[in-house]
C-alpha cells in the first residue's frame, strides 16, 4: 500500500474536458489536508480547444524532491469522444499517449460514456482499470454535463479512500458556490457520490479490496496555498513595493497581468494592458521615471520587441524589473512549452553596452522571495533587472505553507533624493560618483529638475559627444555593475560538498530534477555537487570560479540547444564544461540526468542531448 506518495496524471481534450478542473480541485483540497501537491509540469496545448492537454500531479506528505520521471501511478483519461486532433482514436487518446508510462500495478480511470477501451495489454501488467461513465452520469442522470469532472473527482477520492465523509469537498464547494444557494453545492456533491458509487461497483464486480494507493490527511495541517509561480511573483512584487505593472497578452506571462489587474489597485497601484509590447515597456519606464516602482512581464517574442528599451532603461538610468517567463523559441516557437533559451538575450540584447542585472528563481517559492531582491536591486542600481522564469515555473503550481508568505518582509527602501538634498547643491541627474550610483530625483520634487536622457549626456543630462564626458559617463554606468558585484552579487546555491566529485550546474526551474538526480547518483556511489545559479549577471566570476575549479568535471544542464550558461562559464572562468541539453519542450526527468551524467563520467561525453527520437544522443569531441 502506497500512502500519500504517488504521481497522478489527468489528460483529455483541452477546454472541452476540463483537465485542470480536476487538478485544481485536487491541488486545493489536498493542500488544505496538509499534503504536498506539485504540478510543475503542465502539458498545455498551444490552442484553446481541441488538442490534448495533460496535467501531472506529484502528491506527497513531505516536500517532494522533484516531479520525478515519466512513470505515473494513476492515469485519468477524460476523453469521452473523438479528439478532433486525432480523430482515429475515439475516447482513448489519453490512454494511448500515457498508458505506457503507467507503472505495473498502477490504476487507470477513464470516461467510458462512449464505450469501453481495449486495455488487455495494461491489465496484463497488473494495471487496475476503472471505466467510469462520468459524462453519461452527468448528462443523463444529473442533467448537467459540466459536473462530469466532479463525478471523476468523486471516483478518484473513493479510489484513494479519501474524504469519505465529504468534508473537504463540501467545504470547498460551499466557499465557491455557497453564495448562489445550496442547489449547486448539492448537485456537485451528488455528482461526487455517483462517481464514488461507480468505483464501488467496479471494486465489487472485480472483487478488489482496494487499489494499493491511499491518501490520508495530515493531522492538524498548517495553512497552505496552492500557488502558481506567476501568482507568487506578483505577491512578492507587491510586497516589495511594485505599484505599476504593464503587460501584453502572451503565454506564459498573461497570468501575471491578470493577477496584477485583480490585486494591485487594492494597494494603490495600477496595471496596464499595453496596446502592444512596446507600449507596455515604455509606459512602465515612464511610470518609473515619474517615481513609481515599476515592473513589466512578458515572454520571449514580447521581449524581443522590447529590446530597444533595455538601452533606454540602462542609459536614462530608469529602474525597471523585467520578468521574462521563457517559452520555447525562436520566434513563435512552442508557446506552451518551457525552455531556457533567453539567457543570451537578457545578458546581451540591445545595441551598445548596457548595465543590467539578471536573476533567475529556481522554484515557485523563489519566484516569491527573489522578486523582492530584483525590485531592490532595480531601485538601487537604476537599470533593467531581468527576472528569468519559465513556463514550468510560471504556470506550474505547488503547495506552499502560508508561513513562508507571511514573514512580513518590509518593502524596499526608496533610493530617491529629497528636496533638502537637492537644494544643497545644483542637482545633477547623472552625478559622477565612486559607486557609479547617482542620486535620483523624482519629477515633482521641488528644488531641481531631472533631465533623463537616452542620448549620451553630461552629468546634468544634456546631450554631449565630448570624448572625456562620454568616457566618464560610460564608466560611471558600468561602475554600478562593479559595485553590484562587490555588494550584492550572490554565489550560486551549493548542494553537497565543494571539491568532491562531479559538479552538476544548473539555473532556473531545473533544480528539483538535478537534486533528485544527485540523490540517485549518490545511492549508486557517485559523488555529485549541485551548483545552482540565481544571480546570473553580471557574472559573479569571483564567487563562482572557486566552486567550479575544485570539482572534477563541470556538467551544465540547460533547456536550450547551445548551453548558454555553459558558454558564459567557459568565457568567464576559463574552464571547460560538459553539457546536458534538452529542448524538446519537456522538463528534465531525473533518470535522464542520471544517464547523461554516466555518459559524461564513464564515456567522456562532451555534450549529451536528451529527449529526441534517440532519447540520449552523445557527442564526444577531442578538444574537450
Amino acid at each position, binding site marked *: 500500500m502506497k500512502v500519500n506518495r504517488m504521481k497522478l496524471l489527468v489528460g483529455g481534450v483541452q477546454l472541452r474536458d476540463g483537465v485542470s478542473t480536476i487538478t485544481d480541485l485536487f491541488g486545493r483540497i489536498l493542500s488544505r489536508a496538509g499534503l504536498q501537491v506539485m504540478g510543475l509540469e503542465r502539458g498545455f496545448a498551444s490552442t484553446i480547444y481541441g488538442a490534448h492537454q495533460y496535467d501531472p500531479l506529484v502528491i506527497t506528505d513531505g516536500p517532494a524532491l522533484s516531479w520525478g520521471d515519466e512513470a505515473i501511478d494513476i492515469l485519468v483519461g477524460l476523453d469521452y469522444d473523438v479528439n478532433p486532433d486525432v480523430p482515429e482514436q475515439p475516447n482513448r487518446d489519453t490512454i494511448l499517449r500515457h498508458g505506457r508510462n503507467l507503472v505495473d500495478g498502477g490504476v487507470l480511470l477513464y470516461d467510458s460514456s462512449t464505450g469501453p477501451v481495449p486495455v488487455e495489454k495494461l491489465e496484463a501488467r497488473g494495471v487496475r482499470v476503472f471505466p467510469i461513465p462520468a459524462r453519461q452520469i452527468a448528462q443523463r442522470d444529473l442533467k448537467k454535463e459540466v459536473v462530469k469532472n466532479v463525478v471523476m473527482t468523486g471516483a478518484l477520492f473513493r479510489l484513494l479512500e479519501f474524504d469519505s465523509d465529504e468534508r473537504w469537498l463540501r467545504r470547498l464547494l460551499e466557499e465557491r458556490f455557497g453564495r448562489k444557494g445550496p442547489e449547486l453545492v448539492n448537485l456537485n456533491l451528488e455528482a461526487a457520490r455517483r462517481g464514488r458509487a461507480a468505483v464501488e461497483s467496479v471494486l465489487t464486480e472485480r472483487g478488489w479490496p482496494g487499489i494499493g494507493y491511499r491518501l490520508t490527511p495530515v493531522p492538524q495541517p498548517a495553512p497552505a*496555498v496552492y500557488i502558481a509561480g506567476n501568482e507568487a511573483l506578483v505577491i512578492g512584487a507587491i510586497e516589495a513595493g511594485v505599484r*505599476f505593472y504593464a503587460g501584453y497578452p502572451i503565454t506564459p506571462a498573461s497570468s501575471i497581468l491578470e493577477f496584477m489587474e485583480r*490585486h494591485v489597485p487594492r*494597494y494603490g497601484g495600477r496595471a496596464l494592458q499595453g496596446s502592444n509590447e512596446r507600449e507596455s515597456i515604455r509606459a512602465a519606464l515612464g511610470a518609473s521615471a515619474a517615481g*513609481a516602482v*515599476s515592473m513589466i512581464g512578458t515572454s520571449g517574442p514580447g521581449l524581443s520587441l522590447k529590446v530597444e*528599451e533595455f538601452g533606454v532603461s540602462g542609459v536614462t538610468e530608469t529602474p525597471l524589473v523585467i520578468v521574462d517567463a521563457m517559452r520555447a523559441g525562436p520566434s513563435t516557437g512552442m508557446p506552451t512549452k518551457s525552455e531556457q533559451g533567453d539567457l543570451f538575450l537578457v545578458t546581451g540584447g540591445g545595441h551598445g553596452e548596457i548595465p543590467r542585472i539578471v536573476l533567475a528563481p529556481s522554484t515557485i517559492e523563489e519566484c516569491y522571495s527573489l522578486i523582492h531582491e530584483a525590485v531592490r536591486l532595480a531601485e538601487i542600481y537604476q537599470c533593467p533587472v531581468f527576472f528569468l522564469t519559465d513556463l514550468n515555473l510560471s504556470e506550474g503550481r505547488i503547495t506552499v505553507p502560508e508561513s513562508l508568505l507571511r514573514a512580513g518582509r518590509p*518593502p524596499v527602501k526608496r533610493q530617491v533624493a529629497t528636496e533638502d538634498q537637492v537644494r544643497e547643491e545644483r542637482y545633477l541627474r547623472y552625478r559622477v560618483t565612486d559607486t557609479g550610483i547617482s542620486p535620483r530625483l*523624482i519629477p515633482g520634487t521641488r528644488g531641481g529638475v531631472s533631465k533623463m536622457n537616452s542620448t549620451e549626456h553630461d552629468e546634468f543630462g544634456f546631450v554631449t559627444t565630448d570624448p572625456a564626458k562620454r568616457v566618464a559617463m560610460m564608466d560611471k554606468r558600468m561602475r554600478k555593475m562593479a559595485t553590484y558585484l562587490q555588494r550584492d552579487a550572490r554565489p550560486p546555491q551549493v548542494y553537497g560538498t565543494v571539491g568532491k566529485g562531479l559538479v552538476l550546474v544548473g539555473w532556473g526551474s531545473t533544480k528539483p530534477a538535478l537534486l533528485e538526480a544527485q540523490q540517485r547518483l549518490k545511492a549508486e556511489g557517485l559523488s555529485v555537487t549541485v551548483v545552482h545559479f540565481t544571480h546570473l549577471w553580471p557574472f559573479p566570476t569571483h564567487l563562482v570560479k572557486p566552486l567550479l575549479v575544485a570539482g572534477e568535471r563541470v556538467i551544465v544542464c540547460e533547456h536550450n540547444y547551445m548551453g548558454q550558461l555553459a558558454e558564459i562559464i567557459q568565457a568567464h572562468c576559463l574552464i571547460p564544461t560538459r553539457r546536458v541539453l534538452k529542448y524538446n519542450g519537456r522538463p528534465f526527468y531525473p533518470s535522464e540526468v542520471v544517464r547523461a551524467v554516466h555518459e559524461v563520467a564513464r564515456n567522456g561525453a562532451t555534450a549529451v542531448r536528451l529527449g529526441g527520437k534517440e532519447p540520449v544522443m552523445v557527442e564526444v569531441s577531442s578538444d574537450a
Partner: protein
Amino acid sequence: MPDAVKSIWEQNATPRHRIQWCPGCGDFAVLNALKAALTTLELTPSEVLLVGGIGCSGQIRNYLNGNSFYGTHGGALAYALGAKMANPELTVIALAGDGDTLAIGVENFVHISRRDPDITLLIMDNGVYGLTKGQDSPSAGLGKPVGVSVEEHPPMLDPVKLALTCGATFVAQSFSGDPKHTTEMLVEAVRHKGFALVNDFSPCVTYNKFNTYDWFRAHCEPVPASHDPAGEDAAWDLIRDFERRDKLPTGVIYRHPRTKAPAKRLPMSTTELEKVDLEPMLQGLR
C-alpha cells in the same frame, strides 16, 4: 513676458547660442510659445515633465527648464502615458515631430488618442525627417495634389483626421509663424482634461522647400468664430470645408469635455512605501 518670469524657463536650459536648430527653423518660435504658455499656466519647472520624441523637434526638451525624458523613436506618448498614470499631479507634455508621431510612433498615437490620458502632444509638423537630412515623413506632400501615387511616396497622413478618428478629445492646429496663437493653443491644450493634440506647422527651412513660411501664410486660415468645437460632425464638416478650399484650419477644431475618473497618485518617493497586508491575495489560492 516679464524678464523675471522668463528666466525661470531659461535656467537649467541649453544656452540659446548652442541650440542646434538651423537659423529660421520654425521650432524657435515653438520654443518661445511653449515657455510663454507654461508661464501663462503659472507652472514651475519641477511640476512639468517634457517628453521628447527623436528628431530635431525633440531637442526642445533641453532648450527650456523642466523635468524631461528622452527615450526611443516613436515612444514619447507611451512614456508620457506611464508618467501621467504614475503621477497625475505632473503636467506631462510630449514634444515630437511628424515622423516620430505618424510613422514609427503611430501605434502610440492611435492608442493613446483612444486612452485619453490627461497629457498634451505638440507635433512640430514640417513634412520631413530633418535630422537625417530631409527624407519624406508621413505628412510630406501637404498641399500637393494627389494624382498618381506610388508605394514609395504615398499621399500624406493628416494627424488631425487621425486623432479625431481615434477618439482624441482635443484637437487643435497652429502655425509657428504666429507664435501668439501657438501659445494660446498650448495653454488650452494643457488645460484640457484629456489627451490634447496641437499640430503646429513648423517649417523646415533647410529641407522642405515647398511648405515654406510664405506657403503656410497663404494657406493657414483661422477656424471661424462660429465653429462649435464640441460637435464631432461640426469638426469633420470644418475639415472637409477647408480641404475643398485648399486651406489649413488653425485653432481649436474639436474639444469634447469627456468626463474622466479622477486618477490616484501612486505611492511614490515622498511617501515611504508601506508594508502591505497580503491576505487579500492569498484568499483565492487556498
